[in-house]
């Protein structure tokens, strides 16, 4: 028996050592005492990588918010799958990222996962309530409010990104502020003539960004409500000329050799860096596509569609509070989000890092990231709170951005935004979940080839349609339409 005991002890001490090392590695004890009445919130946001300087920057932000509102956060970046897992496994959190594309809001809210803030938001954080205004629509569900929408680009504008050095200076063509999709053709033709062995369109297997925004999504990119219709009707994308017309053109361009023949198998890294034509989704005045230092030439953007605004586009990024939270914590979370949405100096910390180390203010009021800022804290603004409150980022000291760009973007939405007429309709996908799963799988068999122009829509759509019909497409369409009609009747103007 003594041998076993000795062995047992050895194993026990080994295990203890292992557990202790694991504890050290996970870095518990990073908590810092900010005072007795300060509330700590666990805030999980979307992110595929953890920025190197996160802890340092959060600490700086916590010092500020602890003093101002008595709330500090433990900020975590988690990828989409982890967000799903945290929600499903009942792990504790206070605030979490939710949207149409990661930790899907409409599904989670239907399961009752989020805190209804409609009763407390007006009296706890009136400033926040007023600032979000009409965009609260995004967080509505059966009369309650279940998240705080992040103010950012609330509609989607689809644009071409063209090499202006080549097209304007060399070829003498002009790049207008906006054009239609087919207007791109002469540019492609010109480049192909000069470089017959190259492909003018730089695109990978994910296709041209923006195809998913051309109609109001109901079931992914498959079924949607066309923005052009006065009476909302749900249709498959192949019945929406706005979508399928672009796929047809794209296929024509593919056949003409304007797109690489292997595009359907190509990753982003395989795109030719010289491609003079790319696609993008952003907003008027966005300069992220324009830095010549990034692209090797000057780029001008030209808008071909949008801005389309619907409940789905407004749900691009939101922060929800856990339904299991106490009211005290929920109020603290709202105060924190209000501070992020109103105090630019505080907002800039989580947005860009520490002033002087990660970024500097420029004389016109915009900011410029330092090398360390781009290396160790290159997050997107939507990940860490209100985008419009943060200072605007300039491309370089000579390439300045407009510090008031967001005012103009939001005015633009009012002026020429194309609004959905579905009044915030959301289809409860659990009604026909098995059909939806099946048609999703069928769609994915064809989508890459369609959105890259590889396949001819007139050949593959009939085949795909037949498969989807066999899987119950008509039953699904009927159900959605009757739900939509019911919803519209219940919510008259």
């Amino acid at each position, binding site marked *: *028996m003594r*041998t*076993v005991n000795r*062995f047992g002890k050895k*194993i026990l001490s080994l295990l203890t050592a292992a557990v202790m090392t694991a504890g050290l590695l996970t870095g518990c004890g990073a908590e810092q005492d900010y005072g007795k009445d300060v509330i700590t919130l666990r805030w999980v946001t979307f992110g595929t990588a953890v920025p190197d300087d996160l802890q340092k920057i959060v600490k700086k932000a916590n010092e500020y918010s602890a003093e101002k509102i008595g709330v500090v956060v433990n900020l975590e970046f988690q990828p989409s*799958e982890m967000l*799903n897992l945290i*929600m*499903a*496994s*009942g792990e*504790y959190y206070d605030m979490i990222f939710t949207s149409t594309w990661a930790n*899907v809001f409409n*599904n989670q809210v239907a*399961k*009752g*996962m*989020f805190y209804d803030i409609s009763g407390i938001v007006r009296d706890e954080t009136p400033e926040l309530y007023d600032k979000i205004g009409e965009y609260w629509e995004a967080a509505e569900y059966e009369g309650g409010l279940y998240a705080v929408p992040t103010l950012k680009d609330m509609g989607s504008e689809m644009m071409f990104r063209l090499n202006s050095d080549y097209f304007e200076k060399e070829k003498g063509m002009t790049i207008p502020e906006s054009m239609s999709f087919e207007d791109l053709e002469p540019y492609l033709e010109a480049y192909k003539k000069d470089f017959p062995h190259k492909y003018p369109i730089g695109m990978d*297997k994910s296709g041209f960004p923006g195809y998913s925004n051309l109609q109001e999504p109901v079931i*992914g990119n498959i079924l949607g409500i066309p923005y052009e219709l006065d009476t909302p009707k749900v249709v498959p994308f192949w019945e929406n000329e706005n979508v399928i017309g672009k796929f047809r053109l794209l296929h024509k361009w593919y056949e003409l050799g304007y797109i*690489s*023949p*292997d595009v*359907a*198998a190509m990753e982003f890294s395989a795109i030719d860096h010289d491609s003079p034509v790319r696609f993008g989704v952003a907003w008027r005045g966005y300069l992220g596509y324009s830095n010549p230092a990034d692209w090797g030439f000057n780029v001008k953007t030209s808008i071909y569609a949008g801005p389309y605004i619907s409940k789905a586009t407004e749900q691009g990024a939101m922060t929800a509070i*856990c*339904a*299991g939270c106490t009211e005290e914590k929920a109020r603290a979370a709202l105060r924190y989000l209000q501070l992020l949405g109103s105090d630019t100096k505080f907002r800039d910390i989580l947005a860009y890092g520490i002033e002087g180390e990660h970024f500097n203010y420029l004389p016109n009021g915009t900011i410029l990231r330092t090398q360390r800022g781009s290396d160790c804290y290159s997050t997107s603004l939507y990940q860490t709170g209100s985008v419009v409150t943060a200072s605007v980022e300039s491309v370089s000291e000579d390439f300045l951005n407009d510090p008031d760009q967001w005012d103009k973007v939001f005015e633009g939405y009012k002026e020429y935004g194309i609004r959905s007429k579905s009044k915030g309709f959301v289809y409860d*996908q659990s009604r026909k*979940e*098995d*059909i*939806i*799963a*099946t048609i*999703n*799988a*069928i769609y*994915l*068999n*064809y*989508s*890459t*080839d*369609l959105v890259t122009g*590889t*396949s001819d829509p007139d050949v593959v759509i009939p085949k795909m349609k*037949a*498969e989807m019909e*066999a*899987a*119950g497409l008509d039953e699904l369409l009927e159900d959605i339409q009757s739900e939509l009609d019911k919803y519209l009747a219940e919510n008259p103007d």
Partner: protein
Amino acid sequence: MDKNDQPVKKRKYGSLSSSAKKERRQLDLMTLPTVIWYGLFCYLPLFGMVFAFKEFTPVPGKSLFTNLFVNSPWVGLKNFSYLFRNPLSRSVILNTLTYNIIFLAAGIAIPVALAIFLSEVHQKKFQGLVQMTLVLPYFISWVIVGYCVYGFLSTDTGLFNSVLKYFGADPVQWYQSPQYWRTIIILLNIWKTSGYTLIIYLCSITTIDRTLYESAALDGASFMQRVRYITIPHLRPTVATLFILGIGSLLSSDFGLFYQVPMDSGALQDVTQTLDVYVYKSLMINANFSYSSAAAFLQSAVGCVLLIISNLIIRRVDKNSALV
């Protein structure tokens, strides 16, 4: 325990027995990590099977166990329905089975043949070199293999098309041509896995008594006769074991091989879509744990049944070769 308390009968074996026992206990202890590993990662997660028969409706702030066992209602076989709704599900299942049967057959024939030839090579250095070259692919991830294959098959810069162009032939758009892909997939699988199984067979061959070969050679047996009457009969238990293990995963497929290597090209889906790929595509957009558990349950259940049946058959034929 006092030594005097021990029964007289046990003393008969003397001190040797007790030290041997001690040694055995120590050996038993050495299995502990494996037992713990299997317990934690193979048996404990089995409770997740319950997902397949429940509509998972978590309540925030409650633990996974409460949510699964208390808060979620039983729904019977409802979660399985999406697997059979697709008009393609027949071809998906057929694809999975066909590939696996071919893999199973090729995975026995080719490594066995290679092992026999390699065992005849008496130059140790050369043998080692060949062995290493054959095993190496086993350690390369499918993602990397996928990119290497792309290097060969890409339409304008790929190696194959460059050769075709050199000889004046028309280049082939490989990722749009499903007719080649069954062969490509089967070849790749053989290339990647046979080295590893080869080692197992080579080990069994080295355990065969050499004197058998010597006396057979003295009696004038040719190489083929020696293989047929000595090597193959001796390899039978190993073949049976690997066969039974392989049959258990007849409905499963290597996601990397069928999704990463063809670069998820839509034109190839008729020949590359297996059950795992289909499940991934169905659930990629809407994560539904119950649906994915249902698919996994189906795969394991079918695999388990097949495994038991094949084991029974093998036991009938050759008792020593069966697993249990």
